[in-house]
């Protein structure tokens, strides 16, 4: 026989909590919050999906942490142990690796959808800024985590990846040594990356993520300018339960996609890194860095009197800064108008990323 919790006991708990803490915000969220419905509502779910993958990362990451050993001598063997000896260790590792990639993918989709819907306009400027920073942090998670299994591909990709920062004017050499913990990629780099991956980045991400989520809940969902003018005719649904259940449905579909890619492409262990061996063929960074690597390869070694690679790195740096500052120079968005220039920039960026990535995978690479 099904045993139900008496309603009055739940009420007593809530009353007890209400006496001590102001729960009106939660009450509002449950009872009053509305989510606008329009033909671009689908994109709202990608923020939640990104969050879902992040939660998976935290839990699977903690499980991996129980067995992982961050030294050049033991890292590969510990991952091998996780995959071969630990019950369902292979599953946890595969999910952690795939979920990381899907999280970055979902974050990119979320970023571009917010960009095109101009949801960054007043009063959500800081939500956008923190969102872009969270995406950059996700890339940092990806870059630092890629090295941790200490396999051949990861080792040489990290070597190439860290080399690029050396071209940054004035501080390049310092950055290189700071990232590597010395002149070259060694066990010191691995320990350092491990520290970034499990302590520094999670701490910063958690703080920013809390603000980002708080801001989203506080300010509600943004309506694209083209619908805002017809606000009176816009439909809306209750956040709880209608939207939340749809969010959960999105999470379940995301879980299905995760299971599918993990089944079709099981994450490999690879071959242990040998720092003295020559770089093997087919070294590729993670897919989300590929368009930048390909760009750097296309830039001539010298552009006028400047180092081509340095110009490329500076270019990406400037684009990153401009991306963060988009809400502050898109004056039309506040007026409910669309900036054709920014829209064109967004479309070109997507096409550019796709084309460069396709070229990189289609043409054999030698980094």
């Amino acid at each position, binding site marked *: 026989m099904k045993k139900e919790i008496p309603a009055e006991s739940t009420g007593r708990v809530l009353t007890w909590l209400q006496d001590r803490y102001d729960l009106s915000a939660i009450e509002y969220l449950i009872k009053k919050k509305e989510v606008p419905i329009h033909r671009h509502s689908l994109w709202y779910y990608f923020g939640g999906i990104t969050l879902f993958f992040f939660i998976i990362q935290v839990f699977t990451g903690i499980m991996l942490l129980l067995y992982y050993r961050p030294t050049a001598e033991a890292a590969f063997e510990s991952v091998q142990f996780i995959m071969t000896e630990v019950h369902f260790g292979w599953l946890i590792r595969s999910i952690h690796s795939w979920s990381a990639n899907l999280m970055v993918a979902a974050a990119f989709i979320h970023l571009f959808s917010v960009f095109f819907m101009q949801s960054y306009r007043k009063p959500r400027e800081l939500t956008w800024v923190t969102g872009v920073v969270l995406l950059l942090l996700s890339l940092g998670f990806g870059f630092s985590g890629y090295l941790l299994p200490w396999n051949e591909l990861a080792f040489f990709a990290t070597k190439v990846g860290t080399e690029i920062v050396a071209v940054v004017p004035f501080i390049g050499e310092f950055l290189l040594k700071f990232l590597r913990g010395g002149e070259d990629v060694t066990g010191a780099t691995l320990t350092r990356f491990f520290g970034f991956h499990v302590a520094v980045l999670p701490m910063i991400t958690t703080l920013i993520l809390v603000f980002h989520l708080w801001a989203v809940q506080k300010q509600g969902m943004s309506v694209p300018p083209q619908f805002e003018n017809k606000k009176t005719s816009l439909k809306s649904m209750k956040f709880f339960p*209608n939207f939340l259940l749809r969010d959960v449905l999105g999470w379940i579909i995301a879980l299905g996609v995760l299971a599918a890619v993990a089944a*079709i492409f099981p994450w490999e*262990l690879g071959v242990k890194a040998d720092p003295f061996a020559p770089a093997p063929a087919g070294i590729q960074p993670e897919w989300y860095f590929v368009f930048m690597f390909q760009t750097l390869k296309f830039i001539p070694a010298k552009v006028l009197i400047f180092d081509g690679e340095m110009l490329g790195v500076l270019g990406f740096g400037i684009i990153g800064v401009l991306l963060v500052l988009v809400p502050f120079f898109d004056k039309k968005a506040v007026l409910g108008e669309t900036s054709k220039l920014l829209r064109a920039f967004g479309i070109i960026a997507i096409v550019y990323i796709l084309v460069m990535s396709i070229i990189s995978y289609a043409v054999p690479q030698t980094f």
Partner: protein
Amino acid sequence: MKSKKIFLINLFVLSGGWFCFLFSQSPEQADNVNSCVSCHLEMGDELAVPVTGMEQDVHDRLGLSCVSCHGGDPKAGLDGDLEAAMDPAKGYIGIPERSAIPQLCAKCHSEPNYMRQFNPRVSTDQFARYKTSVHGQRLQRGDTKVATCIDCHGVHGIRNAKDARSSVYPPNIVKTCGKCHADSEYMKDYGVATDQVELYSTSVHGKALLEKGDQGAPVCNDCHGNHGASPPGAPSVAFVCGQCHLNNSELFIKSPHKMAFDDMDLPECEACHGNHAIEHPTDEMIGAGEQSMCIDCHEDGSKGFETAVTIRREIDSLKGKIHFADSLVSVAERAGMQVSEAKFQLNDADDALIKSRTIIHSLSVDQIKESTGEGIKLTDAATKAGWEALDELQFRRKGLAISIILISILALGLYLKIKEIDKKYPFKTEGE
């Protein structure tokens, strides 16, 4: 007053005595006074050459000097009396005759009691062995072009053989022997080849020593001897090679080849492997292929020919199975599957292959089959483990695929629930 005078005299005598004591030479130093070095250096040019670098000489370091070999009286030279210093009556011999050099060195090096004071374990049979060598025998017959002690060890500035800068330190020996043996002009009267150094450099031994720096690799004297240097006779080649390749040598000596080679006066190991240009042996050397050594003697259809073909087939079979199992296990390992036991089995199978290649020297098909059989058993086990690991990988993938079905059912159920909820809490238009 008188007592004061006596005191001062005593003080003077005593202080003078101390002065003399401090600045006079010790008896040992006095004996070692060497006018040869100072005069020769002073005269310079070619006369200075013999004494330049003498401070590095092992003899000089042990307290010996020019007089120990050349005789004479270096003390007399200190007074400027060169004639007395180089007086034949005082044992001065000047530059020794080449033919007399071995005896000259042997004066000390063949005296165990004398040599023991420097090194209790040093051998003193160099001269006796030298006399048995081709060099020594030709020297006795009056050929002074042959190598004597100084041609290999140097003259002034001789270093200990364990000194890496010594001309007889193992990695330097090839160059030292090659000084004469690679000089076709110098060797033209002897009718021997002068390409040994060149051939050795291309050999498996030469590459190990000269390219990889492996000092365990044999050099000229390891096969030919050093002081008793001579080419090994045909029947003793297996013993020479067997110093390092013990198993191969023992199997060969017990094999039917031993008697046949002796009858045909073939130089054993050398007949198949060569001498100075020994290449890394390959499986192609066996069987009936173009590079086979067997078909040089065994005609098609003969028993030897059939044996060669069978041996090659056995080796190829094991090698092929190891290659396949290794590829399979590597795929599973890269995928993160547990194959450590299979890898141990493959290591043991590799050992069985090496053992089988060694057993080839016995020419016993039964022994080879027994060895390759062990390897094949191990390889089969590794292959099975490899397949099982890949099956397990597929099982995991299927498990995940099934989970997708469950997730889809869950998603569908939730979708239907959402539809129901939407009816319960319908969408509102702004302002309602």
